[in-house]
């Protein structure tokens, strides 16, 4: 039996959770077992978890589970996993997932592989993940009976072609959280960077924050999320949460536009898992072209408006 934790933000099931549920179903099919999705307090989107592959959908209900505290959440998940005798517990490799995966491993006496990026080739073992900040991949065998996996975001396509199932509500006990959340600030509008499939990113070549209009317009035209390089965030031209790269957010969108970014190795470490990279830079020697699928050598202040016009 495979148990997938479908995590939420602001009372809604996250995209990463749908990916995890489909991953859990495909792994269950490989192993010839069933997949159960578990979430808390009937969040928005819970009714669709079946269509993403869950054979069974469980909502564990208790007001104490309305928290981001990994200790409270992991305990509820592992208790349920033990109750149903789950062989695999799958969570998302997200901010929530990172606070619970390690705890689940201890609670369930299970080996953990975090940031898994594909189904195992041999159904029994060999979970693949990226290592050395994108410079290599590895396959890891888990030696314990119970296995915990966290799934890297945007690495596995959610599939909603399965049959819907009704949600089963279970009232449960929960720990009292020792972490009191006092404020949550989320950026409204575009998709958060770790979940974004299309990203338009710009660097020092923009010359100043006043020139970002064309970047925002390009992003709006294709429905992308905007990002930036480290020097841009450090100079305060753009907010910190837009910074992608090794020290910022690591992303793996389908399409990454790098505009006026030279392509330092620290930047590449956070974006080199993008499926398609387009580099626009006036310097033909910019190292980023070596990592690009498509390159445009030219003045971004001319190229980007032309690109927007062509897209429209």
């Amino acid at each position, binding site marked *: 039996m495979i148990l997938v934790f479908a995590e939420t933000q602001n009372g809604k099931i996250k995209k990463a959770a749908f990916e995890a549920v489909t991953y859990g179903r495909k792994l269950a099919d490989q192993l010839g077992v069933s997949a159960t999705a578990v979430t808390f307090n009937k969040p928005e989107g819970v009714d669709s978890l079946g269509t993403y592959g869950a054979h069974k959908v469980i909502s564990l209900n208790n007001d104490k589970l309305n928290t981001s505290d990994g200790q409270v959440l992991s305990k509820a998940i592992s208790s349920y996993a033990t109750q149903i005798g789950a062989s695999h517990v799958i969570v998302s490799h997200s901010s929530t997932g990172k606070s619970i995966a390690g705890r689940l491993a201890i609670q369930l006496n299970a080996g953990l592989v975090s940031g898994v990026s594909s189904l195992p080739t041999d159904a029994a073992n060999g979970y693949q993940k*990226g290592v050395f900040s994108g410079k290599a991949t590895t396959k890891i065998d888990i030696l314990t009976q119970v296995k915990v996996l966290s799934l890297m975001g945007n690495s596995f396509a959610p599939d909603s072609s399965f049959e819907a199932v009704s949600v089963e509500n279970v009232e449960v006990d929960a720990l009292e959280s020792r972490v009191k959340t006092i404020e949550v600030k989320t950026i409204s509008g575009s998709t958060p960077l770790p979940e974004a499939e299309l990203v338009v990113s710009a660097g020092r070549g923009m010359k100043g924050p006043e020139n970002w209009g064309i970047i925002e317009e390009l992003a709006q035209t294709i429905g992308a999320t905007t990002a930036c390089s480290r020097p841009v965030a450090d100079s305060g031209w753009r907010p910190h949460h837009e910074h992608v790269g090794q020290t910022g957010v690591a992303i793996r969108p389908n399409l990454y536009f790098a505009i006026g970014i030279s392509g330092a190795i620290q930047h590449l470490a956070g974006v080199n898992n993008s499926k398609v990279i387009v580099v626009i830079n006036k310097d033909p020697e910019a190292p980023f072209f070596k990592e690009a699928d498509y390159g*445009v050598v030219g003045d971004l202040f001319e190229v980007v408006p032309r690109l927007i016009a062509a897209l429209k």
Partner: protein
Amino acid sequence: MKILVCVSKTPETTAKISFEGGKTFDKSNVNFIMNPYDEWYALVRGVELASEHSGTVTILNVGTSENDAIIRKGLAIGANDAVRIDTEPRDSLFVAHQIANFVKSDSFDLVLFGKETIDYNGSEVPAMVAELLDQPFISYATGLKIEGQTATIARDIEGGTEVAKVDLPFVASAAKGMAEQKIPNMRGIMMARKKPLKVVAAVDIEAQTQFSSFELPAEKTECKYVDAENMEELVRLLKSEAKVL
């Protein structure tokens, strides 16, 4: 206030990575450093907090004597003393048990880590340690202030930040924003030589995972250049060739 900062050894950011027979990481010709997130964010913030609250910072590393140079660098940045648990790390659970076992033998108000290591990119150990110690854990902390026994801590979440209050003791992993990188000065380096580095024996723990193989990514195909005057062609390629629009 007693602060423990756990540091790991990693290949430097620009190191070329290769494997022997696709099975083991080839360490020859690789320069090793203190994992940047452990150093820049966890250690520097730990040293700042210790100085604000007349506390101490202890560095903890799980590894062999090859790591002593890295530990000395941490002492030069401002930690008071260091402990190395003398063993070759096997997996994250193994390391977490070593750390938790050490913390139980002493008592710390705060245990800090970097957000992840730049080699195995797991973010696994901090949550495991928190669980083994039955303490709260805050991941990806971007700001940390302590007043009395209570910390106010900001952390990165998807597309935003969350601020929480938590009482000491607890475990946190540190991300960008916690502190600024600090280069050790000559005085720090000289003083570091005299600071205590205690070596303790490891506890015996079975590994629960093992690497079965490593692979380098496929060579990137040659970049396809599109004329700067012809953005219609780029749009066409992205739609019909790459199929990403």
